[in-house]
C-alpha cells in the first residue's frame, strides 16, 4: 500500500509533529468533557500526539489502578494517538513551614519518571519551584535531575523543564540548564520552549481570569515579553519539545497575541522536527477551547506548508 500524502509529509526531514495538550481544555475537563472526549477532540484535529497533566488526567495519581491503565492504552489504540509529554510538579514549598529536601525532591521526580514511562510518554516536564520574579529555579533542581539521569536513560524518557514567560531565552535560567546538559553530557535532559515567550501583544484573558489593571501591574508579562523569534536558533540544539502556547485565534485564523509567521520561520530554520503541542490558555468559556485548538492546527500547518513552498523565509 502506498503511503498516504499525510504520512509522506510526516516522514519528511525537518517537518513538525502535531499534538495537543489536555491543558488546552482546563475547566471544560471534568465538567463538560471526559478523558475520552479529549482524545476525540485531539485526534479529530489530525494530531498524532497527546500531552497530559500527570496529576490531572491520571485517575488515582500517583498510583493509577490497572483498570485506568487498561482504559488509557485502549484510548491510545482507538484514537491512534501516541503519548508525548507528561507535565509534573515538584512541590518545593511542600508545606508553609518547610521546603523539600534533596532526597524528597529527587523522589518526586523519580515517581513521575516511572509513571510517565508506565503510560508510554517519552518526555517529562517537571515544574521546579522558583525563588524570584524572573523564575530562577531553586538550586536543588540540579541534584533532583542528576540523581535521576541514569533512570531516565534506562526508561527512555527525556526530562525537559519549560522556558516560560516571563523568562526569555537569553537568561541565566536557560544558561543553567544548558550548562547542566554540557557538564553531564546527558541525552535525557533538554529544554521545552513555551511559545508564550514570543507573545508580542497584550492578553485580555489569562485562562479563567479576565485581566484587569491590577493583574497587569503585578504580572507585566501578561502584556507579552516579546522574545525575538530568532533567539530560538541560539538554543535549538537543546530543545526537545515545544508547547505551542496561544490564547486567541479569530475566524480569519489571525492569532491576536503570538506572531506565528516569524516563530515558525525560526523553528523551521533550526531543523526542529519534534512536536508542536497545542496549549490553549485563553478565555475559559465552556467549549471555546475545542475550536480554538482546531484553528491553531490549521494555522500552524498552513504556515509550515507555506514555508516549505518558499512563500516566506
Amino acid at each position, binding site marked *: 500500500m502506498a503511503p498516504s500524502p499525510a504520512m509522506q509529509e510526516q516522514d519528511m526531514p525537518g517537518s513538525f509533529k502535531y499534538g495537543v495538550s489536555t491543558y488546552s481544555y482546563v475547566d471544560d475537563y*471534568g465538567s*463538560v468533557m471526559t478523558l475520552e472526549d479529549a482524545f476525540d477532540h485531539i485526534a479529530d484535529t489530525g494530531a498524532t500526539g497527546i500531552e497530559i*497533566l500527570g496529576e490531572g488526567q491520571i485517575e488515582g*495519581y500517583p498510583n493509577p489502578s490497572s483498570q485506568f491503565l487498561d482504559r488509557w492504552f485502549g484510548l491510545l489504540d482507538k484514537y491512534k494517538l501516541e503519548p508525548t509529554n507528561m507535565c509534573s510538579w515538584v*512541590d518545593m514549598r*511542600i508545606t508553609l513551614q518547610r521546603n523539600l529536601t534533596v532526597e524528597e525532591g529527587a523522589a518526586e521526580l523519580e515517581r513521575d519518571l516511572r509513571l510517565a514511562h508506565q503510560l508510554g510518554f517519552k518526555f517529562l516536564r517537571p515544574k521546579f519551584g522558583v525563588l524570584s520574579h524572573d523564575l530562577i529555579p531553586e538550586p536543588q533542581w540540579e541534584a533532583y535531575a542528576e540523581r535521576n539521569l541514569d533512570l531516565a536513560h534506562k526508561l527512555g524518557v527525556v526530562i525537559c523543564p519549560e522556558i516560560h514567560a516571563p523568562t526569555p531565552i537569553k537568561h541565566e535560567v536557560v544558561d543553567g540548564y544548558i550548562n547542566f546538559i554540557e557538564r553531564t553530557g546527558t541525552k535525557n535532559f533538554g529544554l521545552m520552549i513555551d511559545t508564550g515567550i514570543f507573545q508580542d501583544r497584550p492578553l485580555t484573558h489569562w485562562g479563567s481570569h479576565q485581566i484587569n489593571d491590577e493583574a497587569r501591574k503585578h504580572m507585566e508579562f501578561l502584556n507579552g515579553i516579546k522574545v525575538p523569534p530568532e533567539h530560538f536558533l541560539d538554543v535549538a540544539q537543546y530543545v526537545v519539545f515545544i508547547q505551542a502556547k496561544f490564547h486567541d485565534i479569530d475566524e480569519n485564523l489571525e492569532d491576536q497575541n503570538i506572531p506565528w509567521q516569524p516563530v515558525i520561520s525560526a523553528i523551521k530554520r533550526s531543523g526542529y522536527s519534534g512536536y508542536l503541542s497545542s496549549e490553549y490558555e485563553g478565555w475559559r468559556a465552556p467549549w471555546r477551547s475545542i475550536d480554538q485548538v482546531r484553528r491553531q492546527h490549521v494555522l500552524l500547518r498552513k504556515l509550515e506548508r507555506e514555508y516549505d513552498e518558499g512563500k516566506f523565509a
Partner: protein
Amino acid sequence: MLEHQLIQSTGFRNFGPVGAREGFAIRIRIPNYHGTRLSQLDGFDVTVDGVFYDHEINRFGIRDEVYTMAEMREEITARWGLTEWGEILVDKPGGLEPGVHKIEVVARIRYSYFPPDVHIFPMHAERFGTICIA
C-alpha cells in the same frame, strides 16, 4: 460531572442536626488546573450575604475526611484530584435560611513555581446559590 464554575450548585447545604444546625457547606471543584496535595491549599475565605468567614477558621472536607486549616497545611500525602469535589465547612450556629444567598469564595492555592511573594494565589469566584433545607 462537575459544573464549569468553581462554586457548585449542589452541595450548598446546612450541616449538623435539624433544628440545631452548626453551619453550612459550599461544594467546590479544585481551584486549579491540576490535582494537588492538600498542603498546597491555604484555605478558603468565604463571604455569604456580606458576612465574612475567615480561611483560618473554615474547614475543608474531601471524600470522608474533614481537615482544619492547621491539618490541611501539613497534609502532604492526601490529594485532591482534578475531577473530585471538596467542600468548605463554615461554622454558623443555626445555619442559613432556605432561599437564595450571595456566595463569594477566595480559594488560596499555593504554587511553588510562582515567585515567593505571590506564591499564594487567590482565586476569586462568586455566584448566587440556593439553600434548600433549613
